[in-house]
């Protein structure tokens, strides 16, 4: 068991809700090389290591009694970005995952409707947006390139999964692809 490489670092990151994607070397390669061994190692602690079909890892969340304030903010921020991509006719996944964004050019504060939604989670201005992105960076969903520029990482697929789940629930359809262990 103790022979698993980087297990301390991996545990410390995953237990905080972070996700491991190819950006997180050497931890990611260590887990990707032997995911079953890591899953088995964490299992006695009640922690379930999830391997997402898009090839990233995270600990399955338990049904928490209290949700941190950061998560609703991240959700609203992400849903607005997807809504914007849809309205502008862009292929959503390709648009969000394959290009760089600038905080100063985000659409979130350009529409009153978006601004009102953000106020519900206490985001009032660009500084609030930056804070959300910093929180997403801690989760391993975003990578900054300088102060203003950033891009979304592979684990952002969890937002797409949530959207598909919501859409399927509404339409009574079978939810689309989910992660496996």
């Amino acid at each position, binding site marked *: 068991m103790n022979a698993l490489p980087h297990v301390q670092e991996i545990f410390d990151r*995953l*237990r*905080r*809700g972070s996700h491991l994607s190819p950006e997180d070397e050497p931890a990611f390669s260590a887990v990707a090389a032997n995911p079953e061994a890591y899953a088995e190692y964490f299992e006695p602690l009640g*922690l379930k290591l999830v391997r997402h079909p898009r090839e990233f890892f*995270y*600990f*399955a*969340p*338990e*049904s*928490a009694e209290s*949700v*941190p304030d950061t*998560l*609703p903010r*991240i*959700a*609203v921020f*992400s*849903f*607005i970005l*997807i*809504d914007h*991509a*849809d*309205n*502008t*006719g*862009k*292929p*959503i*996944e390709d648009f969000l995952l394959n290009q760089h964004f600038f905080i100063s050019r985000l659409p979130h504060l350009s529409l009153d*409707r978006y601004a*009102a*939604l953000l106020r*519900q*989670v206490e985001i009032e201005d660009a500084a609030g947006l930056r804070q959300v992105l910093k929180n997403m960076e801690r*989760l391993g969903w975003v990578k900054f390139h300088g102060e203003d520029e950033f891009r979304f990482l592979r684990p952002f697929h*969890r*937002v*797409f*999964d*949530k*959207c*598909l*789940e*919501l*859409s*399927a629930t*509404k339409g009574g359809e079978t939810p*689309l692809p989910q992660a496996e262990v």
Partner: protein
Amino acid sequence: MKINPQRFFNFCANHAPLLRGLAEASGEISEADARRLIRTTGNSGDELPETTWRSLRELQILVPAEAGSDFYFLAEPVNRLVAYLFDEAQAATPEIIRGYIQSLEALGKQLSRAIDGDDISVVRLALEEIQQTLRRIQADLDETHRSILTEVARYKTERQTISVRDKFRRIVHWMDRYVDPMVEIVREDGPLRGTFDEVERLLNRAREHGLFNDLPALERNTRHLRLVSRHALRVFQQCRRELQPLYESLRRSSFIAEGAALALERLQRDGLDGWIENHVIASCSLRLQDVPGDGAIERALRNVVEHPPESAPVLVLHTEENTPAAYLRHIWLESLPDEADGNLPLADLLGWIINRYPQKDTADTLAGFTRLVFDGRYSARFTAAESRAYETHDGELHANPVELTSP
């Protein structure tokens, strides 16, 4: 009214952008809109807009939607001509193809009757009409194919802002309206193939019957039937292959967009209460507080493992040989009120107890005294006598005498 072809084509040559604009308007167009289009597209000469407008009506390029109406539509022959010239294909609907099938079925019956009645002229007419219908089917299939390819290309290059969900709805419309029903019609066990087989059987019969001797015409028809049948299936399989990847990609995008829109709509409508539970993307949060170190855990485990074994307590379950002293004391105390009853009033209660039970020690003597003083049936009071000493079995007490009486 007869239209002069030369004047018609001269007008068309000088007003190509206008004709295209009218064709793109699709459906009815008001006089005001038509005049606006004339002004914006202009013409190659110095023609006045009013002259252009008059020519459009005189040449029957624009036809009134109804008598006296201000609304017009582009005459269908002109529409087809423009579509042909600008390579703007229009997809054939399944109803059109079904119409052709019905037409072929009717022609088949006509042909069958003509063969039975040895009516060569009707056989010839039927064959010509079958040939014409087959050409139309082939032309419509080609046009449908081209229009679907155009639509796919438009999706990929379109700069106009159309939401992903709208794009998906349009693709679904193409799939549902054209491709899927068409494949049902033209597949190998579908109605088109069934009708073609029947017509081919009749053509063979006409050949075998021998009265109709234009064998090349019969063979041409047979070849054409087989060609169109194969072509139809191939065209729609190709169409489906063109649309399928676009459909899949837009389907997923559309569902993602729908999910996000739903979440935002619910947040806007219901507020944050209850929203978090179903819409937030949960993540693991394992908080560590006052966690013992590895050394402490190891020490605790070692303490447990190395703890010396201790035998379990043994319960004595047999009957005791002697009556317990506490039980005897309890019996004595409870018997005192009955004992005192026969001797009331007692002028000196403590003296009476010591005299009557001289073997009792000080503690028992005082317990007996307390039992009788606090008994509800008796009344106890200090007498006026001086304090005196009382000797018990194991000590001495100094007290004022207490009298016990019955109230």
